[in-house]
């Protein structure tokens, strides 16, 4: 690298001086916020209507931090004159974020599109016990779930049918 011979001690001063003249890259956090990527694993949102209490997420969780309880119930038949259906009703769905490793396995294994990642990250608490989010709290995160981004050219992935929150909601409504 042939460069004019400037002593290193002077060059270093030049680097810091030039940086000083440029605007800073940091932002003042509570006033200005950077938007995380749509895929960012911030917090897990629960779409309660889609959950069938199948327990897959709780079983696959490496940290055992999902607690689910449910019971059987009878629901009116889908078509008129049909037999009443047996459905599973979700009583409790807690995720303990004090234990969670944010691996996303639960979201991935969910076969009924009930769990979603939201990039929301501002839910720190003063007490660890408060990090246990119940199903109401997890349900509230649903509003922050973004549409999944499009794929890069060359990708041959079939997008999940109910990957977007709106589609997942519609699925259950039908």
């Amino acid at each position, binding site marked *: 690298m042939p460069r004019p011979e400037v*002593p*290193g*001690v002077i*060059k*270093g001063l*030049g*680097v*810091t001086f030039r*940086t000083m003249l440029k605007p800073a*890259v940091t932002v003042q956090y509570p006033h200005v916020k950077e938007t*995380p*990527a*749509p*895929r*960012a*694993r911030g917090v897990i949102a629960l779409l309660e209507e889609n959950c069938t209490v199948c327990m897959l997420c709780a079983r*696959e969780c*490496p940290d055992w931090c999902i607690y689910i309880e449910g019971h059987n119930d009878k629901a009116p038949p889908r078509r008129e004159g049909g037999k009443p259906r047996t459905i599973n009703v979700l009583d409790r769905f807690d995720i303990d974020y004090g234990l969670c*490793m*944010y*691996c*996303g*396995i639960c979201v*991935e294994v969910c076969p009924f599109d009930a769990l979603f*990642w939201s990039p929301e990250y501002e839910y720190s608490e003063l007490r660890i016990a408060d990090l246990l989010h119940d199903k109401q709290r997890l349900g509230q995160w649903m509003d922050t779930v973004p549409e999944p*981004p*499009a*794929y*890069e*050219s*060359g*990708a*041959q*992935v079939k997008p999940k049918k109910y990957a977007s929150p709106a589609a997942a909601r519609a699925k259950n409504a039908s």
Partner: protein
Amino acid sequence: MTVTEPQQLAYIAGQAAEARLRFELETEGMTLNIGPQHPATHGTLRIIVRLDGEQVVWADPSCGYMHRGYEKLAEVRKYQQVTTLVNRIDWLSSFCNEVPFILAAEQLYEVEAPPRAQWIRTLLFEMGRIANITLFLGEMGVQLGAITPVFYAFRDREHVLNLIEAATGGRFHPNYDRVGGLKDDLPKGWVEETKAVMDKVREFCDQMEDLLLGNEIFERRMRGIGVIPARVGLGYGLSGANIRASGVDWDIRRDEPSVLAWKDCDWKVWTHTDGDSFARYWVRLQETREAAKLVDQLCDGLPSGPIMAKMPARLRVPKGEAWVHTENPLGEMGYYVVSDGGPSGPFRCKIRSASFNNISILPWILRGVYVPDVITILSSLYFILGDIDR
């Protein structure tokens, strides 16, 4: 290979100091605990040093303050659940940790990921390398008293982390690899952005060269400090840039057959003959540039196709053992995974992490150096606590 002169001198000085303490003065010397909480150990490493003045008579590193027992934890987890653990071994380049593990698991499953998945793995692997080594390049300055470089490192590394997050969803702990492929394909526009960021990385490397590497004070602090002759380094199991700085031309990316895409790119393995702290810094700086070059090439040549192999219907892992190692930013990282044929995870998962071996040379190399050089050597060997303690 002969022991180089500065190291020999330091050694003799160490012995002389010990002799002085024991026989001449019959004083006790001073035992100094560097760590477990100390700014230079960036984590909880403890080094017990016996000092004569400011000269080290002997040093005894003691680790384990952060031991998490991943080898045991892996035994009660499935393969997919282990990746999220190994993410946390070398936390600055988490993606690089999961790749060798998943490759080992794939060997056991007897599946192979499709080419696009392999390319994206390589791509993110190299970005992990950049995210890791850039921090070293700045951090070395902090350990020597220059506070500014590390902020530049954080500044420019942030772009790389943002990209990793955009692709994988996890900034630090991607958990993006799956047995047989990847979790998801890249989002749109990612490749363009990556190439733009690589220019910033190169600019950062130039800045570090001006700010630190070219600085005469820096050079005086680094040259001839902590010289590791190649044979000693190999005996201690030093790997990666540490051993390349001692003139050993060995890079697993190039020298081992691998399913990853390094073989398809045009790049270079840098070595340095000096074996001192300066050489280690220099080699890592060149490696970062090389990694940026690799990322550019990988972005250009990214093949299209699926990212997930067809998995066998029953996920029963055949009995077997697999050893896969890769050239991680810190050195050789390998997983020795044993499957007992059951449906659960590994029966035994030996994690060979680079830093554990890299710092095991400390008792040998710290004899006879001064306290400031302890810090220089420590950080030029570049360890990450999670990588030592696992």
